[in-house]
């Protein structure tokens, strides 16, 4: 219970509730409007879905093509089966180039494989350079949103943090704080030996990775240090540049309701001879880490279409209340509720897929039209009925039997009425508190473990309705209002 209270403490924090509500209020409708304003209209999302589906179906061919083209330009491509291999490769590269300081662009996959901790343990100073990530790193916390990592911190908190860590006068003015971070990070950029980034979307036909940012930190990390290591989840690839056109435009709209990201860098290898800047050594680490297992299951393959824009976070009513940290993984929001169980174990992360509301807002907001509610339901069905592929045994075989009995009862009016009459009689025997049922007997006791239950009405609703005089229908408005309040 204490664990639950700690994880969901967000709910009792009025400042954070305000910040989350503000974020959703600002970005949710704006993204929807941005889809509407597309020259092709919102139907482009379905086309993007088809493009992603095709790319995932051809994943082996596309990855081989990408790797060949990058290698031909003098870049190195490493295929990492799991997190440990990816981290080991990065450490080995850092050791070979005698790296002391690494600057990082925002990347979900490095968060997933725990790269920062490994680099720090190896004595390499690792600095996050996205302003939000930098704040979160200075505070010793974890990001709580895919594109707004420090959404859970107020400007006053950030002011105090910067005053303590960066030795600047106390202020809560965002431009002043941004300039202070800029000054501190400029020094890091100019002295760093290694730049580490993620990949937003690779392009197989041209052999490039595309990196998006608004701050310019990713351009710094890919231009100034002498080594650049880019990490990409193996699914983040498109066949050709014309697919990038559709996907990147949707990504910018879904993420920040922008027509175009501030900076897009297409990088296809290290500095070429005669050129003035760029890294001497370029490494692309393609990470599997459980993705091929998801790929093999057609039910969940669709989650690999995700391009990590965070649009689903910006509309999710559950995310709005519990915030990103409660998901206990790098991936939060509806996306995380599907992806985290598949990566960490469906049973282990079961409360993620069980806790979502299935309202469908995430699907409506998704720039590539991923049916997240369908997959949440499929995860629940795995949990209830067991699944051999994911090695899940059903938690409670009795529950399935009870559901069968329930469906038999409710599929017939007479059986249902008889069951209700029986229940109405039985509830007289149960203990009550303030007129509410306080405790149900097993196997129904779970329903009352944390709340009381309204008893069944003495007369069923339908029968009461049929006896009501007609005048009540004349004032439906007032009735509806009373119900709402």
């Amino acid at each position, binding site marked *: 219970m204490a664990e639950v209270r700690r994880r969901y403490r967000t709910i009792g924090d009025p400042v954070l509730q305000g910040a989350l509500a503000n974020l959703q209020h600002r970005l949710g409708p704006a993204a929807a409007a941005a889809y509407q304003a597309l020259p092709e209209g919102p139907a482009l999302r379905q086309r993007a879905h088809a493009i992603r589906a095709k790319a995932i179906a051809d994943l*082996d*061919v596309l990855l081989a093509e990408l790797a060949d083209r990058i290698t031909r330009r003098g870049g*190195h491509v*490493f*295929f990492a089966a799991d997190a440990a291999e990816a981290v080991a490769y990065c450490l080995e590269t850092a050791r070979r180039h005698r790296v002391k300081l690494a600057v990082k662009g925002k990347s979900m996959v490095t968060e997933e494989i725990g790269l920062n901790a490994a680099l720090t343990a190896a004595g390499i100073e690792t600095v996050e350079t996205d302003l939000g990530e930098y704040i979160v790193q200075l505070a010793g916390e974890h990001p709580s949103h895919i594109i707004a990592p420090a959404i859970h911190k107020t400007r006053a908190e950030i002011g105090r943090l910067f005053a303590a860590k960066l030795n600047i006068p106390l202020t809560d003015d965002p431009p002043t704080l941004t300039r202070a971070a800029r000054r501190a990070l400029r020094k890091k950029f100019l002295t760093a030996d290694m730049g580490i980034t993620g990949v937003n979307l690779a392009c197989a036909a041209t052999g490039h990775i595309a990196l998006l940012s608004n701050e310019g930190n990713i351009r710094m990390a890919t*231009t100034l240090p002498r080594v650049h290591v880019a990490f990409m989840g193996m699914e983040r690839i498109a066949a050709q540049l014309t697919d990038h056109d559709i996907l990147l435009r949707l990504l910018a709209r879904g993420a920040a309701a922008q027509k175009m990201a501030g900076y897009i860098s297409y990088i296809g290898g290290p500095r070429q001879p005669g050129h003035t800047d760029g890294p001497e050594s370029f490494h692309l680490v393609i990470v599997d880490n459980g993705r091929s297992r998801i790929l093999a299951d057609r039910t969940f393959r669709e989650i690999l279409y995700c391009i990590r824009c965070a649009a689903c976070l910006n509309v999710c009513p559950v995310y709005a209340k519990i915030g990103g940290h409660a998901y206990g993984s790098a991936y939060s929001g509806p996306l995380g509720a599907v992806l985290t169980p598949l990566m960490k174990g469906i049973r282990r992360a079961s409360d993620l897929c069980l806790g979502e509301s299935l309202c469908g807002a995430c699907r409506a907001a998704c720039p590539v039209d991923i049916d997240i509610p369908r997959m949440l339901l499929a995860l629940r069905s795995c949990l209830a009925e067991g699944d051999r592929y994911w090695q899940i045994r059903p938690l409670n075989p009795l529950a399935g039997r009870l559901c069968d009995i329930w469906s038999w009862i409710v599929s017939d009016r007479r059986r249902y009425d008889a069951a209700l009459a029986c229940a109405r009689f039985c509830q007289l025997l149960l203990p009550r508190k303030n007129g509410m049922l306080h405790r149900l007997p097993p196997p129904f006791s779970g329903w009352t473990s944390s709340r009381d239950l309204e008893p069944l009405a003495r007369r069923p609703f339908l029968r009461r309705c049929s006896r009501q005089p007609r005048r009540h229908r004349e004032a439906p408005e007032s009735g509806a209002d009373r119900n709402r309040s």
Partner: protein
Amino acid sequence: MKRLKAARTETGADPVQRHRFLNRIRSALNHPNSGRGAPAAAHATSKAGPHHQGAAGARPCGRPEELLQRLQEAAAELNIHLSLHDSPASAGRCMAAMITRKAPPRNGRREVAIWRHPLVARLELPQRLAGAAITCRTTAAADRTYATRRRFYRDLEAAAVGVTSADYCLADTATLVMRSRPGQPRSVSLLPDIHAAVIEAGQLLPDFSRLCRLLSSGADEGKRGLTHCMTLISGPSKTADIEAVMVEGAHGPRALYLYVILAAPIDAPQPETSGKPRTTS
């Protein structure tokens, strides 16, 4: 052990590792759970792949005046200081005045970093700024060692303004498209406080879709490709990470000045070659 061995190979492209990785994907795509019989269709994705068509493809390229108007709207949205000029001389005068007015002294000096580029050269900035005691450094197209490159970055960091051109400009989003070339480092548009770019109206493209189609076409531009680094810039560097307050000048330039030369006096761009940049590499 295998893991360590793989990590040790300098190329990173351990063929066994790669083979095993791709095989895992192949078998996943054929897994009984995936409910599909045939192996992944090994079709050519690069050249023969279907090119993007549809609503965006059908849109007209746009007449120059119309493109300019779309550029003006997009620039206003992104706080880009856009000005239109009849000649490079006029753009040069305007840019020199902006630099004199805006460039703050750094370490007691005022410096401007300039791309080695024919269009930028025609602005004659060194002559125009000599009177204001502002030094212009034109980036050399020399191959540098890491140590001299570091010094170059430090010099650039001291420059108040970086002056570049671009390969294209996308009108709908006011996006500058720059490909890497010797003498045209990407850090000039990144490290200085202010980024000033000059282009000719003939370099305008309607939007990102048009750029993607142009670069994946079989024409000259498609063959030249993206080079090893292509950068797209839409507006100044910005962030909204502190309580969603928009602040310009996060890590890169805090202001972007864009000078568009409407008609080049020497050779006016022909309509059919209007998409091509007038750069030499």
